[in-house]
Every structure is written in C-alpha cells, then in structure tokens.
C-alpha cells in the first residue's frame, strides 16, 4: 500500500482529541429512532387493547405520538449538531481516513451526522401513519 504523500492537514492550537473515543454518540441517532418506534408502537397497542377497542378512535394517542416525535426529533437534531462540530474539527476535509486521533474524531463526527440524518427521516416516516390513520382498525 502506498502512503499518502501530503501531510495530514490539521488544526493548530486546538486540543487534540484523545486516543480513545466513545462510540455512543455515533449510535445515539439510531437509538433515538428505535426508542421513538417502540414508544409509539407500545402506546398505540396498549391504547387499542385496553381503551379504544378494535374499532375505536386513536384519540389522544395521535397527540402523544406527536409529542414523542417532536422530542425525539429535537434529540436527533442535537446529535447531528454535535456530530457536525466533531466533523468540522480542524481544517481537514473528507474522507477522514488518516490513522490519527484527530481524523478518527472527524470520521466519527461525520458518521454521526449521516446516521443522525437517516434516523431523522426514519422517525418522520414512523410518525406519518398517525397523520392519516385515526382509528385502531
């Protein structure tokens, strides 16, 4: 394998990230998406089984799922924003594939942004049914 000729462009003066970084921020977007799905699903299922009945109205469940959605989407937005800050660390551009702590930092940030974007769209899709469907049927 040939080594890259140019030196790694990097920020001067900023504290370099540690050698060990947590993977949790990376997983945070998809985890919030999962949480939103499970919460929405469980709320609707319990409501229809215990309160609404087979043909009943979803009633307040639609509002509750709307609130979940707003909360989770803002959570994902925070995740994306923090990922973006990591990705912007220093002056290097993609692909962040140098074997250095700084590039790993940027890479993790960029991946967090991408997964966060995916989770954002997916959460919207999960919420979409209650916009159109009003009953437990």
């Amino acid at each position, binding site marked *: 394998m040939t080594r890259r000729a140019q030196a790694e462009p990097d920020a001067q003066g900023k504290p370099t990230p540690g050698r060990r970084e947590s993977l949790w921020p990376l997983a945070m977007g998809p985890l919030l998406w999962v949480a939103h799905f499970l919460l929405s699903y469980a709320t609707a299922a319990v409501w229809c089984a215990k309160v609404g009945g*087979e*043909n009943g109205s979803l009633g307040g469940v639609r509002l509750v799922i709307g609130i979940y959605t707003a909360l989770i989407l803002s959570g994902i937005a925070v995740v994306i924003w923090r990922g973006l800050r990591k990705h912007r660390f220093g002056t290097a551009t993609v692909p962040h594939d140098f074997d250095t702590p700084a590039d790993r930092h940027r890479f993790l940030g960029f991946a967090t942004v991408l997964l966060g*974007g995916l989770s954002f*769209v997916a959460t*919207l*899709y999960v919420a*979409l049914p209650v916009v*159109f*469907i009003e009953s437990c*049927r």
Partner: protein
Amino acid sequence: MDATYLSPRSWGWRALIALPLLGGCSGPQSTLQPAGVDAEQIARLFWWMSGFAILIWGVVIGCAVFVTYIKPRSHDSRVARWLILGGGVVVPPLVLGVLLAFGLSLLPSLSAPAEDGLQISVSGERWWRRVRYPTPSGGTVELANEVRLPVGERVGFRLTSPDVIHSFWIPSLGGKVDMIPGRTTRLSLEPTEVGVFRGACAEFCGTSHALMNFRVVVMEPDAFDTWLEQQASPARPPQGEVARRGQEAFLANGCGACHAIRGTSADGVLGPDLTHVGSRLSLAAGTLPTDAESFERWISHPDDIKPGVNMPAFDMLPAPQIHSIATYLSQLE
C-alpha cells in the same frame, strides 16, 4: 462478448417473444383492469409510480449518456456535488415520503367497514375458504370457496384463519389482506362492474398453496338477493334413483363427519359446506369444474389433485358408488 446480443435485430425478436407476456396484464385477476373503487385507486397509484420511475430512469440514463458520450470531459465539481447531494440524498426521502403519505392516505378507506352494509366473514383454511353470509332473517349461513357480491355496494370482510397465515386477495377489486390465526383482519370492497373474477391466496401456506383460489361473482343487487336466499335454503332432495343412492352412500361412508349438507343428517364442520356445491363455479377451491366427472375424480383421489389435502381418498369405494355420490353432489345446486 457475442456481438449479436447488441444487434437491434435480436432485440426486435426478443420484444416479439416477450409480447405474449403482456396477455398476463388482463383477465379475471388483473390489478391493471380494475373492477372496483379500491382497485382503481391502487391502479392509479401504480401508473403514477411507474410514470415517475420511468422519468427518474430517463434522467439517470440521460446523465450517464451526457457524461460519457456528449461531453466526456471533466465537469465542474461543484455542480456535480450538488447533483449527487440533491439527487442522491435529498430527493429520495422526499419521493419516498410523498409515496408513503399517499399510500397511507388510501388506507383508512380501504379498511373502513361498511357499517350498515353487508358483512361477510371469510376464514382461510388449508386449502380452501369458509365463507359466512348474514341472512335476511338475521342468522348466518355457511358457504365455501365462492364469494358473491352485489355491484355498487360497499361490502365489509372480516378475515381470519384457524391454522396458518393465508391471504385474501381479489386483484380486480382491491388490495390484499392477510388472514392471520388468532386475529381478525378487515377489508372492504366496492365492486363497480358485474362479472366473474378470481381471488387467490398470496401468502405461502403449504403444499397446495397455489391451489387455494376462489371465484368472485359480482351480480346485480336483485340477482344477488335471490342467490343468497337460495344458498340459505336447505339442499334439494336427490333427483332420480342414482342420486338417491348417492345420498345414501354419502351418509353411510362418513362424508358427513366433515361435510354438512343442510337438510340431511350430514353436519360436519371440518370441510367445506356442500349444501349447494353443484351451484359453484369451481370445485376444490378453484381447481376443478363442477361436473359429475370432476366430482368422481375428486372423491376417489383428492390427494392427486391437491397434494397434502385434508380429505382422505375414497378410491376403496366401488366405482358405481363413487359415481352415484358424484351424481348426487353435482345436483346440489
């Protein structure tokens, strides 16, 4: 690579050979020839989706042709980046979002019960369908393997299954809904055209899955009422000596343990109700016609016709007896 692959002449032949496949686009179970309100919505969605898919395909292929043949030099990387981000990241979620929203907006009406209208219960069982209609007198009557509907009326279906997951799908009239053990799923349909259509099981359920179909007859409301009244009445008595012996043999050989013929002592519930089996358009869930000869074939070797069938073969009965049973059953109109 063999150059003839690319020659327009060979493509012409291929197109010609593929042409008969288009015949599959019409017929008694085509979603592309809707005969119901719901199927029309689905067909409309299909055409819009196909149109846009062709459009996107054209744009993508157009871009490919543009950069390889028309301007095969380096392109502005900023334009390229916007194209990739726009076409690859922004547009797909938007397009999928619109399709999802449109599909979801159809759902409530597709499963809406016809509260005041006719409610039919259908149970998918390996490998046939138990069909229950409400009678004008307030009771229910059990039929099998055939669904008849009045034209222009919204009809509700309650679907279930005692064994494995089956499905209920009449492509000409509407969408597909699964029949799930332990649950009741719903569907509602509003046929707009009189005619005979075909329903199928579209959820693999075992060896005879492909032989689990049913006829759907959409009738004028008056004809429908007459039909239902007639189906709700007990079986007619056997006509003639052969049929009379057929009825005796039917009752003597234990057919009544699984089959009911209303008006006789046969009251089994494991298999399809046979009270008016002769009036059906097909035998054994869309597998055979309902002539006496097919009845004979079925009774002596149902397992030859439908592998894994839950009815024993009766080929040990003497041929004249099978013949008389077949005569009797084919008379039950």
